[in-house]
């Protein structure tokens, strides 16, 4: 588990942490890049949109079993559920895409499951899951 703060300059440390963990699993380099990008996008959203001008804690926990890599991101920012944001459609009108949805589009593309829950003491937990078998 990595415990850090919502400083945008921590992104590189966070990416290295995720890359090191994911590279040791049975994932292709492309899938590792995708999961690193997805975490970067999720943490960037927490830092820039969740906390904004204030600083707060960001916790990244990675676990896995034989089939799935699970990444939990926890913060104490105001409640925001990205799973409620409608998916962007590249084939539809660009006008229909929500503001700031570009990062979320990457998260959805490079992961298999996205779960949000409000933490009991305040804040958010965002869970990203990636299947290790038949990875996309």
């Amino acid at each position, binding site marked *: 588990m990595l415990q850090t703060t919502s400083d*945008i*300059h921590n*992104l*590189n440390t966070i*990416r290295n942490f995720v890359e090191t963990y994911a590279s040791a699993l049975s994932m292709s380099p*492309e899938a590792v*890049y995708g999961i*690193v*990008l997805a975490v*970067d*996008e999720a943490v*960037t959203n927490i*830092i*820039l949109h969740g906390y904004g001008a204030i600083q707060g804690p960001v916790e990244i926990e990675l676990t896995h079993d034989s089939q799935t890599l699970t990444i939990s991101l926890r913060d104490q920012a105001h409640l925001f559920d990205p799973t409620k944001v409608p998916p*962007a459609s*590249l084939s539809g009108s*660009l*006008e229909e*895409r*929500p*503001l*700031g*949805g*570009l*990062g979320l*589009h*990457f998260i959805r*593309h490079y992961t298999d499951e996205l779960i949000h829950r409000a933490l009991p003491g305040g804040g958010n937990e965002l869970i990203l899951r990636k299947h290790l078998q038949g990875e996309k």
Partner: protein
Amino acid sequence: MDITLTTAQARIPVTVLHLQGKLDGSNYKELINKAQELMQGGTRALLVDLAGVDFMSSAGMVALLSIAKLLKGQIVEEEGWSLLHSAGRELSHGRQNLLKLCSPQPRIAQALEIAGFDLVFDIFSDSSQALAAF
């Protein structure tokens, strides 16, 4: 991320920004600022050489869209998809050809495609092809 500059004479003078490293939420504004600085010095055409970029998030892509708008003399107020939308709308009224991209590494090229950038920008596999298209 490091930015180095070269100039090239295509049909018009082109400033080439060679990016090196990781382009993310922590440094994308540096790229916009550098492009703005160049434009204030008279630059009108830019080629962004991505050969040295081994990571780019959506923040980096927002920077590229911002620069495309600035080259057209427009104020950048939007972010994310709305910026992509307005850039796409402008291109539907005729390609502006003032900002081109070249030499993305395969993973970056894939991400650019996933974001729909191949519909908005000319992306070339090498810089000589890109320069010939200005």
